């Protein structure tokens, strides 16, 4: 499982594409928002938590269809299925690799981009913490969505239609935690629930992902 994780990480770094692309997309969305809504600092401060969360969600979505597509085409997914590693473990490794290549960089970059949106100073810690707690769930849910659409020729669009509704709880709790942090309220409730969602996703979705992969490989 660790070998698979390392292999995926090495491929992602070598191919270059997904790694930087998600971050660049994140940056562009954050730059476009003030251009769209106007430069008033007060307005930007109030919408910054939501924008940062929505943008990281979309950036995570961008690289999802690559999780399984290449392995499916060259047949290594079939090899994985016959290997001693259970499918559930493979799904987990794939999700972790996706998180390390997209979720983690997004989390680390988000505070820097918070300055562009003049995020309230109190909110930076909450932003970092909520993204750290929430983005693994985004990767795991996305891996499930990628497994559902892996056999389809034009799965990309369908993938976003399937995955985005599943992101709703994570988005709500994540953005709410940052917003409450920015307002100086108690954000621990939202953060705990966010952690619960993430833990639940990692407990259940590897099995669903493995089941869908087996169906798709039949």
């Amino acid at each position, binding site marked *: 499982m660790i070998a698979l994780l390392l292999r995926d990480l090495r491929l992602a770094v070598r191919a270059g594409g997904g790694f930087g692309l998600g971050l660049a997309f994140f940056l562009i969305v954050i730059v476009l928002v003030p251009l769209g809504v106007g430069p008033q600092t007060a307005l930007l401060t109030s919408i910054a938590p939501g924008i940062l969360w929505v943008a990281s969600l979309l950036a995570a979505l961008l690289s999802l269809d690559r999780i399984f597509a290449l392995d499916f085409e060259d047949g290594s997914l079939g090899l994985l299925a016959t290997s001693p590693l259970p499918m559930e473990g493979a799904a987990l490794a794939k999700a972790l690799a996706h998180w390390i290549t997209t979720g983690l960089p997004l989390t680390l970059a988000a505070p820097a981009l918070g300055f562009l949106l003049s995020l309230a100073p109190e909110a930076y810690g909450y932003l970092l913490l909520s993204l750290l707690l929430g983005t693994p769930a985004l990767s795991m849910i996305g891996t*499930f969505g990628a497994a*559902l659409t892996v056999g389809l020729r034009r799965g990309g669009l369908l993938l976003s239609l*399937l995955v985005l*509704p599943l992101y*709703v*709880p994570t988005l*709500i709790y994540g953005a709410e935690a940052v917003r409450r942090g920015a307002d100086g309220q108690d954000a621990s409730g939202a953060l705990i629930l966010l952690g619960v969602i993430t833990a639940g996703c990692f407990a259940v979705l590897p099995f669903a992902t493995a*089941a*869908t992969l087996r169906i*798709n490989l039949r």
Partner: protein
Amino acid sequence: MSFWEYANPKKFMGWTAPVLPYVFGAAALCLTVGLVWGFFFTPDDYRQGSTVKIIYLHVPAALMAINAWIMMLVASLIWVVRRHHVSALAARAAGPIGLVMTLIALFTGAIWGQPMWGTYWAWDPRLTSFLILFLFYLGYMAMWEAIEDPDTAADLTSVLCMVGSVFAILSRYAVNFWNQGLHQGASLSLDAEENVSDVFWIPLVICIAGFVLLFIGLVLLRTRTEIRARRIRALEARARRA
């Protein structure tokens, strides 16, 4: 004879053919009686005026939007456990109907919201949950359309339906956490205190019965169509091989 015999495609076609006209007839009767009664013969509410008449469409549609999803979930589970093809096809048949019910609930709610709350749309928990439910229906139907092989499609949509149900419930609670909202509580809870009064109650129940019957009739009709479509596909595949 076991209960599951009714799910054999041939048996299913056999027993649904005579039943279908009665179901549609009863649905038409209930809907006509309920809606005419509700529209013409109920008094206006002292606060809401004549807009209270929208309840005869809004509440049944909202109920059926959720029940259609539950029915899809049950049918998906039956497909996964017992692999009855009719069950998977029934889940597929229910999708578009549930979508339409969700749309009706959203539309009537918006039209009702304008005079009562002063806005067509508010990001209220119930309204938002229904919008999310609408997205789930869209994804589910798109998934069915996208996959060629019928058994793979049935399997994958079943998994999607189950995972989607969990996330739909999670979203419901998340949305509650996020905003408290304008929408009144349940109109039909068993706790009589918050129920609507009797004058509106009887035609409402008739309308709900009408919507349920209409839903059953449409699901049966669409399932029959899907069974026939599957047979056509099988025959064509056989003809190609020969």
